[in-house]
């Protein structure tokens, strides 16, 4: 049977968490806002309106590029990408085609240790939202989302399977969150992923002659499912000696399959054109240096893992904390409160345990958490007189067990410890009870 090699590339859109939109200063937060309230002439595409690019969005895109080892384009410009769709008010999207802000980067994945080559990172604007609800004949449009900054990260088609694809996305999400440029929440739609999937036959010299793009994926789990489904579907077509259609397909959550949306024959001729209303964006050496410095001061996921492991935190716990930036941040804040002695005596791992096992709530303030952790970890002072009383009573009441122990049964002594713990309602530490009991019975 022929062996086909999966060729997978990922296009990921991430909404930046700027306060205002990409090309106007309307508030960018559209979640739960009443429809068409965060709109202005620019993002509504009214006649005569002109875009002014958001400085923060450009800076953040470059930060991401630097974090992903990209080359930064010194002189880049925006372009208009033309297509008609009701949620696109100008009939074009302002995007970047010829000169993305960042190019040729890479991202190394922590678990698999695979390095994914990044082709480009560019900046564009989001569209409005089409709502297909209530009315029979009409769809409604809300332009609140129109113009929200979107960063698009495009990998080379160098991903070999769905597991790596998901790990790449998770890692990318972490990077974005650590840079503080987006919450990158797939369910909320602030991070969206579109895999391009094809299979290379042994006879293919370059890339396969087709590729399938899958849209409508809103979780890491679905990314894996969609890719796996596609690879299977395409394999079965290739095995029939046919070539899968070049098309865009939609992921169907209900049954984990994909279905055709549109074929590339209808593909758009986007007629890219330099955006004449926005002067080119030039990044000078000073800006570049200062951004570079900033990226270096940000503790990115790989660096944080190292930091945590160096604190003598167990690797599996450290990975967990890297994964949840919020918890990780919280832990590091508490660690700052710790004394030198505490740091050296394994107290940090205890903090991690309390945090991970939710023994202490992370909704407390760092000071409250620290105080509670100290109390919990402190050895309980043992009232030896009272313990001795309990032991004497227990020996009296468990004569059989005592003699069994003396004959060598370890279970027997554990039973006695249990009874003492029960009687004393757990006022003693089991280990201390056991040691003391052994002493008495010796």
């Amino acid at each position: 049977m022929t062996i086909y090699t999966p060729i997978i590339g990922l296009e990921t859109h991430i909404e930046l968490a700027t306060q205002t939109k990409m090309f106007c200063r309307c508030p960018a937060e559209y979640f739960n806002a009443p429809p068409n309230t965060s709109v202005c002439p620019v993002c509504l595409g009214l006649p005569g309106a002109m875009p002014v690019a958001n400085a923060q969005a450009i800076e953040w895109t470059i930060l991401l590029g630097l974090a992903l080892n990209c080359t930064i384009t010194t002189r880049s410009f925006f372009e208009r990408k033309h297509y008609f769709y009701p949620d696109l008010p100008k009939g074009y999207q302002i995007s970047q085609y010829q000169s993305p802000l960042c190019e040729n980067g890479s991202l190394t994945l922590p678990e698999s240790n695979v390095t994914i080559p990044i082709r480009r990172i560019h900046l564009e604007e989001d569209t409005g939202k089409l709502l297909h609800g209530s009315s029979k004949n009409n769809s409604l449009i809300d332009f609140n989302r129109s113009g929200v900054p979107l960063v698009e990260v495009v990998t080379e088609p160098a991903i070999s399977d769905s597991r790596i694809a998901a790990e790449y996305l998770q890692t990318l999400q972490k990077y974005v969150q650590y840079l503080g440029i987006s919450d990158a929440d797939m369910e909320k739609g602030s991070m969206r992923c579109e895999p391009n999937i094809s299979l290379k036959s042994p006879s293919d010299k370059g890339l396969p002659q087709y590729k399938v793009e899958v849209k409508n994926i809103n979780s890491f789990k679905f990314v894996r499912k969609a890719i796996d489904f596609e690879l299977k579907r395409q394999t079965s077509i290739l095995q029939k000696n046919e070539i899968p259609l070049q098309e865009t397909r939609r992921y169907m959550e209900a049954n984990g399959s994909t279905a055709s949306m549109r074929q590339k024959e209808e593909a758009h001729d986007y007629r890219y054109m330099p955006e004449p209303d926005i002067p080119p964006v030039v990044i000078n050496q000073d800006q570049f240096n200062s951004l570079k410095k900033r990226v270096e001061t940000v503790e990115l996921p790989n660096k944080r893992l190292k930091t945590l492991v160096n604190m003598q935190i167990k690797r599996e716990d450290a990975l967990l904390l890297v994964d949840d930036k919020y918890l990780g941040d919280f832990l590091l804040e508490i660690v700052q409160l710790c004394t030198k002695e505490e740091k050296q005596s394994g107290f940090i791992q205890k903090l991690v345990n309390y945090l991970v096992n939710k023994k202490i709530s992370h909704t407390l303030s760092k000071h409250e958490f620290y105080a509670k952790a100290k109390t919990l970890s402190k050895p309980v002072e043992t009232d030896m007189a009272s313990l001795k009383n309990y032991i004497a009573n227990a020996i009296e009441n468990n004569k059989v067990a005592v003699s069994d122990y003396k004959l060598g049964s370890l279970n027997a002594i554990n039973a006695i410890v249990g009874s003492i713990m029960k009687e004393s309602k757990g006022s003693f530490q089991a280990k201390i009870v056991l040691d003391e009991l052994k002493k008495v019975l010796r």
Partner: protein
Amino acid sequence: MKLHHLSIAQLRMMLLKKQISKKEVFKYFQSRIQKLNPTVNAILTETEETETMDDVTLPLYGIPFSMKDTYLTKGIRTTAGSRILKDYIPQYDATVYTKLKNSGAILIGKSNCDAWGHGSSTENSDFGPVKNPWNNAYVAGGSSGGSAASVISGMSMFDIGEDTGGSIRLPSSFCSTVGLKVSYGLTSRYGCIAYASSLDTVGPIGKSVEDVAIILEIIAGNDLLDATSVRHKIPKYTRTLRDKKNGLVIGLPKEYFKNSLTPSVAKKIQETIAVYKEMGIAFKEVSLSLTDYAIAAYYLLATSEASSNLARYDSVRFGNDRSVFGEEAKRRMMLGAFTLSAGYYDAYYIKATKIRSLIKQEFDTVFKEVDLLLAPTSPTPAFKLGEKINDPLQMYLSDIFTIPTNIAGIPALSVPCGLSEDTKLPVGFQLLGPAFSEELILQTAYRYENAVGGFLKFNAA
């Protein structure tokens, strides 16, 4: 009293001295519109007297003006001359309108124009052509035909036109007004319905050089809403208007004086040169060898941008669907779409941008030799209505002398220089200068205006 023959300064003085009230002035110009507009068709929408600032010290206090219907005016219908927007009531004001309102000026009407600024005769307006006030059988020029016609016939004191390939200057030369195409970026385009964004400029049309200088001083300057607007300080044009630059050298680009120039226009231009020579100004023949290529480059660049800028007009927000576009808009959108389409982009769009670079360079070189250039605004005086309407290419060639300046982004002022001997229609010449040389251009035009004792007044009606 013929208020419409007064200069802005004179009318302002009367208002200051309370010889006339703001209301009376507005009424006067309203009655001019009611009387003349049914024939000339220069004004598409008349406005009611709006609340304006009652501060007599404002530079344009009580001065009624018209504005090309490509400028957004909140609550006042704005059509761009197209049926697509025939019912469109804007939600915001263009920056230029805000600036004028804040200076005390009162909008009296929105001027007719070729739909979307596409045209050289205003015959492409979906609301009927503008007729040349001097002779109603002739065109007023375009695309800001209503603007020049309303100013010369005294329906408004001045107008704000829009010049992408000659749209302020051609009608100015056809109607005998002073029309300024500013350096690209000198004035804000925010709120101006875009035709071709890298070429569009917002500029004044007036009856005299001084009037134009007054308006320019108010409308020029940076706007945070237009990223392509200038960032430097704007000179006080009115204060330096009477200055005379020593040793001024004016170039005559020989390509503008070739056989395409009709004799009646050539004669007027020669008379103009003679007036300047009398002042002791030196002339020098120069060459702009790429002049003939400018139109071809322009129609590729401008239509590319037009096809993009017109993509937003849909029924979702504006009510009328795209089938309502007029013939010229369709033609330009399709040519533009072709220029940008896959496989042709390099050969057409990119080629045109390279020609633009060369044309810019050529102007730069020439302006090392001379301070300004003098040339006819148009090879002919106004042509007859209907004469070129079925031959788009011939129509495009009307702009042969105005387009190169837009391509290069430099300023040019069209100045009236009398009536042609044969058709008795106005002729204009233009002064071109390096980017942001408006000050020198206005000074030099002002010297001519004084030497000839002012421009023709429109006395009919």
